[in-house]
């Protein structure tokens, strides 16, 4: 065979082999009559599997560098709708702070009421202020028990140690927001619903992980609505007690504890009852 033909034949065979290798490496189906060299290629493809896994220290170093450079600041906003557990149907939106211009930040700062809780901040925004926000879809997954929450979170969830009025834990939901930045830990929050099994929920306890390794999962919550916020103490820890008025009065109590941002919400309990429950949350 002339040299030119030989070169052309080899090039064609080489390209076919490369395509087969790429298919194999991406986990695709193999051809029925495979080039014998594919067996060698398969063995080489195992090198990544045979070598030790990435050490945790290296993983943390790289993840930390990325998180530090990216510096995401996620503010979680809830628009409080004065309806029967309308908070469940409330539009949940996300405000990415870095999208706000310096001028916009100054205007907002004048109109907001803000409370700092250790690692996070709680803000109330009057509904008259236009929101530079975008809605984001959520995925809700029912979990069977608290053990399932612990398995996902990597730690036990916080729960009230005493419950009034014969209430019990009736439902657990893991909520994820797939459109959040990739470094965000998902599920983003866990929602524990308490009440009498046959009745409407009496109150919700929501738990947000504050930080994982170098990355802060949530910077704060911005509540939009006709809301009054006051500072309270939950077992000696600063908390924010919000009263949302409208068709129904809703009380929201937010505080940090043991690496979690905790949020108690109720349209049935009084603020004193909510505070009493919060004192027992461990």
């Amino acid at each position: 065979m002339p040299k030119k033909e030989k070169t052309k034949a080899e090039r064609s065979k080489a390209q076919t082999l490369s395509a087969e290798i790429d298919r194999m490496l991406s986990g695709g189906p193999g051809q029925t009559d495979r080039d014998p060299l594919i067996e060698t290629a398969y063995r080489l493809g195992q090198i990544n599997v045979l070598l030790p896994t990435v050490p945790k220290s290296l993983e943390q170093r790289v993840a930390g560098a990325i998180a530090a450079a990216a510096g995401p600041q996620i503010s979680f906003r809830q628009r409080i709708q004065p309806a029967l557990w309308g908070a469940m149907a409330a539009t949940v939106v996300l405000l990415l702070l870095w999208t706000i211009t310096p001028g916009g930040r100054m205007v907002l700062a004048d109109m907001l009421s803000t409370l700092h809780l250790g690692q996070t901040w709680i803000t109330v925004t009057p509904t008259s202020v236009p929101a530079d926000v975008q809605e984001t879809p959520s995925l809700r997954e029912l979990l069977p028990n608290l053990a399932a929450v612990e398995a996902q979170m990597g730690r036990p969830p916080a729960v009230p140690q005493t419950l009034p009025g014969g209430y019990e834990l009736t439902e657990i939901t893991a909520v994820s927001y797939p459109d959040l930045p990739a470094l965000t830990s998902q599920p983003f929050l866990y929602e524990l619903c308490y009440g009498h099994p046959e009745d409407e929920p009496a109150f919700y306890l929501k738990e947000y992980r504050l930080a994982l390794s170098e990355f802060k999962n949530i910077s704060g919550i911005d509540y939009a609505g006709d809301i009054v916020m006051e500072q309270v103490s939950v077992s000696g820890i600063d908390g924010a007690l919000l009263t949302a008025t409208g068709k129904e009065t809703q009380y929201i109590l937010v505080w940090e504890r043991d690496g979690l941002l905790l949020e108690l919400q109720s349209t049935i309990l009084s603020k004193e009852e909510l505070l009493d429950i919060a004192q027992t949350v461990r």
Partner: protein
Amino acid sequence: MSQRGKYEILAQHYSEYLPRVLNYMRLRTDNEALAQDLTARTFERALSRLSSLRDAGAFGGWLFAIARTEVAGHYRRHRPQLPLESAYGCPTPGESAEGQVVQSEELANLVGALASLQAREQEIIRLKFIAGLTNRAIGKAMGLRAGNVAVILHRALRKLRTQLESED
């Protein structure tokens, strides 16, 4: 693409590429601590060079171009008497090339066989099977046409097959 968008691409892909870069560095060096350090510095360098990332599809080739620069820079700084081409080679055949990282006889066979290839062939094998790059991306990183990469890869695999069959 915005800078934020590029951070997102890096954040989305770093967990997939972290082990690949580390394994690439393990095969390029004979020291686990050095391999880990070069891996971390590759990602740190990538963060400072995000502006050069075109799009998500180019991520692997872009990242490994940085990785290759990091390891070449290390060898330039620490083995000044060696020509640059030698820095791309594995330790000589017959030695335990992998030092601390050899975990199995199969791995030792593979890495040992790899050491018998020419430097350019070794690099193409690493970028194909460790990094998972396409021939086009490999070619761009090494200044070759994709067709040439395919031919060199084909010849390298033939050599490796012969070498491995003699060891098995």
